[in-house]
């Protein structure tokens, strides 16, 4: 099952002096079953956007529509559990690789045995199932984090710079798993990345954030080949220093 989003006049601001507006998006659609790459320099509001999409924090203003329904300020756990995020720095829980991958299923009171075995095979970590998660390499940790997310069969998978610190082998492996997840199971994917090449390889839709504002969004090919906004053009050509 897949689900999409609509963001309407969404703003996220944090208290302080002065009040800091980190995200200000008039309209953004994430179509169900697509892979949206959100690109932009550091501090553009990309991670904030993912936290909103995972319902980990409510927006300061505006409306988020998920799967056709307006998301309330305190969304029920059943709604939050339809979405999950893989972060740039995967935090491993104390225990084995198996324990980490089974964690979300246990939270939901679901059986773990078959689902965890299958997903560990998929990410190439079956042999390390009983190893301590804390002793894995960076690539293995990130694949564990991906397995921990995929085992939940989410409607939406959010990736926050999930391959930023990895070697090309692990980047390729994770990209192929994400692509397969999208194509065979219809999972909507929102991918935050600095890497325009990765965005172009993987995504069907793209969006460019700059200074918290959505500059441009649309299907991936025209986004990269003939961007409408000169700032988007500068970014995709690698001319924007960030």
């Amino acid at each position, binding site marked *: 099952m897949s689900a999409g989003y609509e963001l309407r006049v969404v703003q996220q601001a944090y208290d302080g002096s002065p009040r800091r507006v980190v995200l200000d998006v008039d309209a953004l659609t994430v179509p169900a079953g697509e892979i949206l790459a959100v690109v932009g320099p550091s501090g553009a509001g990309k991670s904030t956007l993912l936290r909103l999409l995972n319902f*980990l924090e409510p927006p300061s203003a505006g409306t988020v529509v998920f799967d056709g329904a307006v998301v309330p300020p305190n969304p029920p756990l059943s709604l939050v559990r339809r979405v999950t995020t893989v972060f740039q720095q995967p935090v491993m829980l104390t225990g084995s690789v198996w324990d980490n991958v089974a964690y979300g299923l246990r*939270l*939901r009171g679901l059986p773990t045995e078959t689902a965890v075995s299958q997903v560990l095979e998929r990410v190439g970590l079956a042999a390390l199932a009983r190893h301590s998660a804390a002793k894995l390499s960076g690539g293995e940790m990130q694949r564990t984090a991906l397995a921990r997310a995929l085992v939940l069969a989410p409607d939406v998978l959010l990736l926050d710079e999930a391959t930023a610190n990895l070697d090309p082998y692990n980047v390729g492996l994770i990209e192929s798993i994400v692509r397969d997840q999208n194509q065979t199971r219809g999972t909507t994917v929102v991918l935050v990345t600095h890497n325009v090449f990765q965005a172009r390889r993987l995504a069907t839709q793209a969006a460019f954030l700059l200074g918290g504002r959505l500059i441009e969004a649309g299907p991936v090919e025209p986004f990269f080949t003939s961007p409408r906004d000169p700032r988007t053009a500068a970014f995709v050509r690698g001319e924007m220093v960030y």
Partner: protein
Amino acid sequence: MLGPLPPIVWLTLYVSGVALALATLAGVPLGAALALNPFPGRRYVELVIYTGMGLPPVVVGLAVYLFLSRSGPLGGLGWLFTPPGMIVAQVIIALPVVIGLTSAAVGSVAPGLRLQVRALGAGPRQVMWAVLKEARLGVLAAIVAGFGSVISEVGAVMLVGGNIEGKTRVLTTAIVLETRKGNFELALALGAALLALALAANAVLLRLGQRARL
């Protein structure tokens, strides 16, 4: 000569054990909640907790004495010069220690962990449990410190319990009494028993800590 020792050891264990259990049951969730939930005025609450960690037991004893005395607001309970009154005093001594050190341990867990477990679908209680599990060595240290603060204190149990033989006499108050009477041999034996008790209790807690580290 050591005839009175077993009941004194038993009462010491009973009073401090129950006080520690109550302080742990209340203090660990409160400490975790304090670390995990920012709210206006949290700094002032932390200031009170940290000040409480250094509360002189004799002052606690005096306050509890006044509350439990016949003319005090809780005089109707009839707990003055009884083990329940001593337990109340020791809970007040141990609680800030357990809350403060648990809060520090939970606060030192990587903030990314909370976000991660929430993103995996953990509800508020499951988040707290996950963080406590990651901070378990620090939480264990909080419980060990709480035990240390009550097993060795004399001022509060002396005032609230009254050091009544066979009723409220514990190791620390017995040591004071026997020293005053010049029974140094018995006082030293009581002191050795107190040390052995503290050693045994800490050995159990540290053993739990080693298992938690695995």
